[in-house]
């Protein structure tokens, strides 16, 4: 004796869930999927992932890209290599040409994604080199803006840079800093690092935050303007690994913790408050520096045990049933994972997703999390290794 049955599978789709036994899954979840998108309540094969532009240099890795608008309302799309700054040609995409034109040095670090931000129509960027650079889209060359000319910092020619750059309170800030001094000095950074800084040396301060003067992003020397300065975090056990800035507050990420930064309202000696949300030896922090990605009031980062969504109103683990699979790919990574929040994949094609790109043997695995549908979908691309953060840029 048998009975007729129908089983229906339809949206909303919950994405991949590799943790729940497949027989116990919700019908809207999938135990295995690859290279499909779950946009607009439909399963579709992923769009073609194709070459659209040459790299600035054929054999030198691009370290990121960013668009900004200059003071003339002109848009520029910039790329970075270890040679320096490049910008996209207006007639980009023409076969047989380099789509990028070299704007200028100084050199950037090799193999380190660039942290950049436009502030008052000027692009600021750095990537672990001991200086912060800027380009306004008008001048012929980028400029070093983080010079430290006082004798405290070794006299003319000194400068400071960092791995992560952001803006809060009209001040450009850098985290995980590098200090270059020309003359030998007694270290101005007390509590960490060597006591004596030899002439022409670069010293790393992975727990240091340095900020420019208020509203003057090319003054970084606190002996020149007292609203510039630095904060050495001696009370945390780890290094800074990234940052998210949300207007008047910022989350400063460490390997095992997060520090909350707010503004005091004073532009003088103490412009910021800092509150370690936790400074335990082990805890939720960002362990993959370039897994942090932000879109407006929402951001994402990867900790040792989950992927987290963070914002002004939320702090939640979002790995869900995909967490173990993501962590397994991270454990197999052959390079640093990079991430971005993509709001639109083409002009008018909206699909807001956090994309975590993990280089693994045989290509790159992209784990995408839809902010609308709250589901994960994996994609595998054997033909490429993604080297820098994905981002939406003008062409």
């Amino acid at each position: 004796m048998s009975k007729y049955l129908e089983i229906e599978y339809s949206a909303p789709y919950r994405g991949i869930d590799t943790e729940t036994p497949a027989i116990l899954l919700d019908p809207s979840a999938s135990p295995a999927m690859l290279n499909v998108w779950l946009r607009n309540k439909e399963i579709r094969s992923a769009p073609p992932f194709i070459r659209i532009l040459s790299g600035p240099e054929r054999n030198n890795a691009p370290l990121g890209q960013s668009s900004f608008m200059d003071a003339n309302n002109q848009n520029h799309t910039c790329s970075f290599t270890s040679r320096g700054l490049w910008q996209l040609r207006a007639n980009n995409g023409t076969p047989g040409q380099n789509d990028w034109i070299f704007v200028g040095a100084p050199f950037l670090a090799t193999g380190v994604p660039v942290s950049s931000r436009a502030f008052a129509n000027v692009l600021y960027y750095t990537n672990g080199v001991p200086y912060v650079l800027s380009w306004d889209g008008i001048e012929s060359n980028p400029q070093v803006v983080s010079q430290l000319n006082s004798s405290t910092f070794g006299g003319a020619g000194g400068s400071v840079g960092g791995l992560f750059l952001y803006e809060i309170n009209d001040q450009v800030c850098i985290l995980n800093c590098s200090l270059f001094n020309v003359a030998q000095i007694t270290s101005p950074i007390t509590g960490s690092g060597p006591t004596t800084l030899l002439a022409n040396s670069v010293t790393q301060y992975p727990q240091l935050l340095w900020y420019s003067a208020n509203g003057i992003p090319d003054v970084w020397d606190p002996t020149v303007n007292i609203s510039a300065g630095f904060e050495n975090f001696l009370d945390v056990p780890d290094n800074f690994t990234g940052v998210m800035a949300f207007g008047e507050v910022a989350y400063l990420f460490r390997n095992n913790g997060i520090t909350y930064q707010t503004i005091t309202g004073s532009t003088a000696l103490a412009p910021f408050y800092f509150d370690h949300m936790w400074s335990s030896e082990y805890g939720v922090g960002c362990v993959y520096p370039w897994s942090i990605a932000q879109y407006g009031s929402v951001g994402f980062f990867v900790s040792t045990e989950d992927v987290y969504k963070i914002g002004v109103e939320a702090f939640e683990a979002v790995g869900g049933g995909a967490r173990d699979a993501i962590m397994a790919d991270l454990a197999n990574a052959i390079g640093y994972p990079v991430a971005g929040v993509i709001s639109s994949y083409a002009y008018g094609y909206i699909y807001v997703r956090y994309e975590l790109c993990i280089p693994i043997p045989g290509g790159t695995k992209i784990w995408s999390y839809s902010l609308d549908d709250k589901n994960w979908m994996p994609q595998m691309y054997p033909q490429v290794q993604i080297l820098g953060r994905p981002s939406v840029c003008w062409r």
Partner: protein
Amino acid sequence: MAVPTPPAPPLPRYPPYGGNSGGSGGGAAGGGSATGTGVYVPTSNGGVFAQSRSAMYPVLNLVNGNMEYYSFNPMVAPNDIVTGSSYSWKVEQVKPFRSFTTRGICWMFTDLGQVTATWTMTGVNESQNVVSIPKTVQVGNQIPTGKIMAVLISFGLTAMNQQLSVSRSPNAGPLSIVKVTLYGECEENQLA
């Protein structure tokens, strides 16, 4: 009586000077220009027309070793020629330790163009062997209509714990699944 001199026009914020023109290729040194009032206005150093936006991925091409920029192109049919696609649904028990027969499925899809997909029903029998029936079908029109269409695919698999999956090979066309309905019969006998 002398004709009064008209007041100087306001400084133009936008073209006709060089900025916002998109440039002729970028990278040229900003030369600046003189307006009718003799005020120097620096021009932008290159730039883009900003008529389109792309999600840009800096990549190392593992095939030719070049550094390039990649992007998804969602404005064409989702038919990647390099990578295939696959999707599996949950395992259906229906009733514990009872086999059921999947007569077939009804696949509803958006007609994005011709696509070849392989649908597979997989299950296990009481002897703990895996049994599987794949069916490769081609659907869709050469000129996509964008309409929602449906097709029946017959299987005739009798097994326990059955699971439906679909796969599409690289360059096999744009796959769309709006809804899938699995139909068949289930044993009603009591256990023991």
